């Protein structure tokens, strides 16, 4: 009995020390980022390096939060990411429903196209994309950004939602149909509410992609009224010098919404992924 207990203790020590080592790998760079956000710019390359310096202050945060233009970047990121999340879910639910509940000609082909769209390199699209967005009158607008982000978030969302809906028994929607309801009613009355954990997983994921997107957000906007947080951070890099502390402060502020989203939904997020990933 004692040997079993001892082995458990050894195993536990092993796992915990493994976790600590991995945690240092993951966390130390972030800790350094956090520490830099409280320094003043001259102290960033201080030798020897220090975590907390004499110049410790909240100045960088004050500078970001006191600047209307920077706050506008946050507002834009929220508008775009929230709209992308909602619209992606909406469109992906419809598509996932079609893939999960119907058989129709070209189903496999359309599915393969949607899946392989994920593989299209953004760099391929950048060259013609600008002209296209201008021609559609979407240059420097929220809608242009939202639709573009959706092209990249939709495929994965559709795959996940289809997989999730496949785990739900057909008897569910058919009970509605027997009562005289349509497929549409069944989808929104029964399937969507049942699929909430899966939808949350997809939603969190979509929000993160949109919140962090950089290449198109840079190419498709030209005024500060439309730019998002990643571009705002890049603007702080300036031409001539890095505003290290402000860049780091803005990164910290920019990561908080994503962190909160993850903290708040982490159980459901992982649960939703589980159901989608380990499809029966």
């Amino acid at each position, binding site marked *: 009995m004692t040997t079993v207990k001892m082995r458990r203790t050894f195993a536990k020590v092993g796992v915990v020390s493994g976790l600590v080592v991995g945690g240092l790998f993951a966390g130390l760079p972030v800790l350094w980022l956090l520490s830099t956000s409280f320094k003043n710019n001259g102290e960033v390359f201080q030798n020897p390096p220090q975590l907390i310096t004499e110049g410790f202050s909240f100045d960088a945060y004050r500078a970001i939060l006191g600047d209307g233009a920077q706050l506008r970047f946050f507002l834009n990121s929220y508008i775009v990411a929230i709209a992308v999340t909602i619209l992606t879910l909406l469109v992906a639910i419809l598509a996932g429903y079609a893939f999960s509940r119907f058989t129709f000609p070209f189903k496999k082909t359309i599915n393969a196209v949607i899946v392989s769209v994920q593989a299209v390199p953004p760099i391929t699209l950048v060259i013609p994309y600008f002209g*296209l967005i201008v021609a559609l009158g979407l240059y420097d607008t929220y809608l242009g950004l939202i639709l573009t982000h959706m092209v990249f978030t939709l495929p994965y969302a559709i795959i996940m939602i289809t997989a999730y809906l496949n785990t739900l028994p057909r008897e569910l929607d058919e009970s509605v149909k027997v009562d005289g309801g349509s497929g549409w009613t069944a989808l929104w009355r029964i399937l969507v509410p049942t699929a909430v954990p899966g939808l949350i997983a997809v939603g969190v994921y979509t929000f993160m992609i949109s919140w962090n997107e950089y290449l198109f957000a840079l190419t498709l906007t030209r005024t500060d009224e439309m730019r998002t947080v990643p571009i705002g951070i890049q603007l702080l890099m300036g031409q001539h010098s890095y505003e290290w502390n402000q860049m780091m402060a803005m990164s910290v502020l920019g990561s908080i919404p994503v962190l909160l989203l993850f903290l708040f939904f982490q159980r459901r997020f992982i649960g939703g992924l589980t159901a989608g990933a380990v499809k029966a």
Partner: protein
Amino acid sequence: MTLTAPETSTRAAPAVPGRSRSTLTRRLVPYGYLSPTVLLIVVLMVVPIVMVIGYSFRDNVIVQENSVFAGFANYTKVLTDPSFLSALKNTAIFISVSTAAHLVLGLAFAMMLNSPLLGGVTKAIFRIVYILPWLFTIAVIAVIWRLLLDPAGVVNHVLQTLGLIEQGVNWFSDPSMALWAVSFVNIWAGYPFFMISLLAALQGIPGDLYEAAAVDGTNWFQRFVHVTLPQLRPVIISMAVLDLIWTSHQFALIWMTTGGGPLNSTEMLSTFTYKQAFSEYEFATASAAAVIVLLLTMVLAFFYVRSQRER
């Protein structure tokens, strides 16, 4: 809500009496559900791809008003360019190293986080720490690692203090080091998504499989090989292919850390294409390069579609 659902039923929907929809309308229903998706993908994905393919067969597109058909000249030019070939090699190394490391780290971390030996609070705290790199946008990741890996930066300082290196290493600017440095940064930035997906998959493995194995007197490693891995296989395969694809898209990280240098040692297909377009204004050759990159990723996509079907 329990998810003990058995196999998806394949029973056809029974005809509902009192509803006289024409069969044609009924056949169109699934297309109706798909129409927003298809519209979006056609306009914002298929159209630009067709445009870029069109550009790749012309000469001096975009910068000159009247460009002419050029056949495969642009393709010949790209495929015989030694920097394109070295970009191809670098990309292959970069994506395979990154994906392998993402898989190993992701699996190791996920298994530790799923360990039954630990309490819920401990796991929750570590889960948050481990997810941190995922929360930062790539511009920030590039900047923070430039700061850390600067020749006068904190990483060199720590390594020197520990006596592991004698002189500061030029992580990003030594041609023999740079590719490994950017791969390392990409590994740091990318493992959490792997980890989370594998963690989710691990939690979906029915506990009785392990119990049965434990009854048979197997040890930890045997259970890992005979229960865990086979159960995770579909997830691992599709994640690995997806990761190869996503990593090959990586542009911003390279551009903001090394810009493809030094001596082209970190030049990737994406940075090569970008330079052709936005610094040499050779939009036609850039388009040809973009199409070649597209074709290469389509090979990966083929495997991805297949792995999705298998699931």
